[in-house]
């Protein structure tokens, strides 16, 4: 009941003209960004971080959430019409959606995806309303050791669950932690890694790190390998669904959220795994098994619904615990820091207007998105033809605006380029970018919580594990660390099969998808 009242108050906040405007701007930008190749929601939110200097937090977060959800909608358009999934969440959409588009059923694929996102987002957000206050209540009196445990969990999860190589993930995390160390120590004022530079003593602004790694790094990387002739999108009409299609899709829409939401809430790589799981589930339950691989509509409907629900799940951990489980959540966390707001259990008490306004605006955004995407899909698809030089020049331009807006100093732009070059090198050598960003954002906070916890316990390490909450979190951490060993013990068949066939081009055997890994995206598009 209490949550319901708060939600109604939230609608009061979300439906003010100005906030409606921000929601509309967010979903429009988000859809465009999702459709545009090369830009993902995390890069978009990073590029927009400078608006936090001029906007009130509620408006800014309503816009960011709109971008997050909108990019999910738009991302599937790219997957279906181009077969080159941009967002990691949209990989699965290409598997059935692209064959559908090729055989002239692109309109139905787009409709199944759009309604799937709507259904998934709605159910996911309802679950968010139901669960988030409870989680926040449970966690309300967590202290320094618990916060530190959560941050350790974020570090471990982001390096060992995402990406294909743990060493490389760890290297990326340590690079991020190092950047986070630069500046004055928060507790003692001691200079660290400043080399006597006054500018470095202020630390490296998180906006510059996020924009440098996500935007400049990406633009430079693409510039080095720019495809001479971009792939041609498949032309498509207005999305619609026939009665037969509806009969096949509604169950998939309904099942997707319950697979997507839990995976979004835990640090397991966002939408990648649940979309794949939903794909497998729908395939097993389908009455039209012969169509799979040639364009089965359930294979679009289910995973897309799971993807949007996972976005809602991500918000649960981000808002109630301050635990970012995806790149977008990490950048949103950086935005919270810009405002000096600490996401966590107290957020619901201290900033009810912000939180509930944000949640209510998700419902508003979802309706706007459905209205935008169903009739206008062919218009959005035109964005796929944007000349690539303009696209990447635009990214460089907005990155420069953002970095300059931080402090109005040219040296920040130089720093941005340096971090961009680091991002370039990371992409070249397969170091994932997300751990570095998480390291920069959470590193300083984690150090503070660690020192606070040890101060309370007077230096005894037991001070880190003296609450049930922290013990539980560390148990999860141990489980994550042991997971590869466990997994190696389980599906031996699949691993040996993959190793014997040396050629990396060999697609995974679709007959045994439950044993195979979820498909890695064409690079976690940020």
């Amino acid at each position: 009941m209490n949550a319901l009242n708060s939600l109604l108050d939230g609608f009061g906040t979300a439906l003010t003209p100005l906030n409606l405007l921000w929601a509309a701007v967010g979903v429009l930008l988000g859809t465009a960004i999702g459709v545009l190749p090369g830009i993902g929601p995390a890069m978009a939110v990073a590029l927009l971080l400078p608006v936090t200097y001029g906007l009130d937090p509620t408006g800014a977060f309503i816009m960011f959430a709109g971008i997050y959800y909108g990019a999910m909608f738009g991302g599937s358009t790219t997957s279906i019409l181009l077969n080159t999934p941009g967002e990691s969440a949209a990989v699965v959409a290409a598997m059935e959606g692209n064959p559908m588009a090729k055989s002239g059923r692109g309109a139905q694929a787009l409709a199944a995806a759009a309604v799937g996102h709507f259904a998934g987002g709605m159910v996911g957000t309802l679950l968010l309303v139901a669960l988030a206050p409870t989680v926040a209540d449970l966690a309300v009196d967590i202290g320094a050791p618990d916060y530190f445990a959560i941050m350790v969990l974020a570090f471990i999860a982001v390096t060992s669950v995402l990406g294909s190589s743990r060493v490389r993930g760890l290297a990326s995390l340590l690079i991020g932690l190092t950047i986070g160390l630069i500046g004055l120590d928060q507790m003692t004022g001691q200079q660290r890694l400043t080399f006597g530079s006054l500018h470095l003593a202020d630390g490296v602004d998180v906006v510059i790190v996020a924009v440098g790694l996500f935007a400049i790094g990406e633009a430079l990387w693409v510039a080095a390998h720019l495809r001479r002739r971009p792939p041609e999108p498949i032309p498509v009409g207005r999305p619609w669904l026939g009665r037969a299609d509806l009969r096949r899709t509604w169950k998939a829409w309904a099942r997707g959220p319950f697979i997507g939401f839990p995976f979004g809430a835990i640090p397991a790589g966002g939408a990648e795994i649940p979309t794949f799981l939903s794909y497998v589930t729908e395939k097993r339950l389908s009455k039209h098994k012969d169509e799979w691989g040639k364009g089965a509509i359930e294979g679009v409907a289910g995973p897309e619904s799971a993807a949007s629900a996972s976005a809602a799940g991500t918000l649960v951990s981000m808002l109630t615990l301050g635990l970012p489980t995806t790149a977008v959540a990490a950048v949103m966390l950086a935005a919270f820091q810009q405002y000096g707001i600490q996401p966590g259990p107290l957020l619901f008490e201290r900033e009810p207007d912000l939180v509930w306004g944000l949640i209510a605006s998700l419902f508003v955004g979802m309706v706007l998105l459905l209205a935008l995407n169903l009739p206008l899909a062919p218009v959005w698809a035109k964005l796929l033809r944007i000349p690539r030089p303009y696209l990447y020049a635009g990214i460089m331009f907005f990155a420069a605006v953002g970095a300059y807006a931080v402090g109005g100093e040219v040296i920040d732009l130089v720093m941005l380029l340096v971090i961009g070059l680091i991002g370039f090198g990371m992409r070249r050598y397969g170091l994932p970018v997300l751990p570095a960003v998480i390291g920069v954002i959470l590193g300083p906070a984690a150090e503070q919580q660690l020192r606070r916890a040890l101060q309370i316990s007077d230096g005894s390490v037991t001070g880190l594990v003296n609450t049930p909450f922290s013990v539980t979190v560390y148990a999860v951490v141990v489980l994550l660390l042991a997971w590869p060993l466990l997994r190696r013990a389980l599906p031996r068949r699949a691993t040996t099969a993959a190793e014997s066939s040396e050629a990396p081009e060999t697609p995974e055997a679709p007959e045994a998808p439950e044993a195979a890994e979820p498909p890695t995206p064409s690079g976690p598009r940020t």
Partner: protein
Amino acid sequence: MTTPSTPTPASETSTSTAASGTKPTPRTTTSWLRDHSELGVCALLLALGVLVLTDALTMDVDITQRGPVGPKTVPVVVGIGLLLVAALLAVDVLRGGRGQAETGEDVDLTEPADWRTVALLSGVFLGSAVLIEPLGFPAAGALLFWGAAYALGSRRVDRDPLIAAVLSLAAYALFDKLLGVPLPGGPLMGVL
């Protein structure tokens, strides 16, 4: 079309990618170095680790130390971590592991890297950064967009500068006037 045609194979083990990467061709030093250029990453991580450790250990904390954990501890941990990861990564690379270069919609990894474009883009970026103060943001921003588009291969002399100017002015208006983030207008805005 029975299999999902995702552009990248899900190569869980980095070793399987290496199998196709290393060819049984002449074992000269240069080609070995090129195949193992990732060792450069290890060297950089090692250097970074040494830097962090040196900085931490030369810190003078006698007065500022408060509580059992001072400002040194975490940098020392991070520095040791960097050294460890550098070593582990080197072992992985020498055993044939390779980091997988990131792919994407507009990325064509079959072509060799185009360093000219990267250098040109970086140059344009630095050049415009220096010009922001004397020329003002709208002019420098337009130069940045035009220059970047040029570096990326756009040669429409009629259209590119126009788009650059409109974008730059719009961004200036949005940030400076609407969002209240001050950007220098420069002499140009003084005239307008």
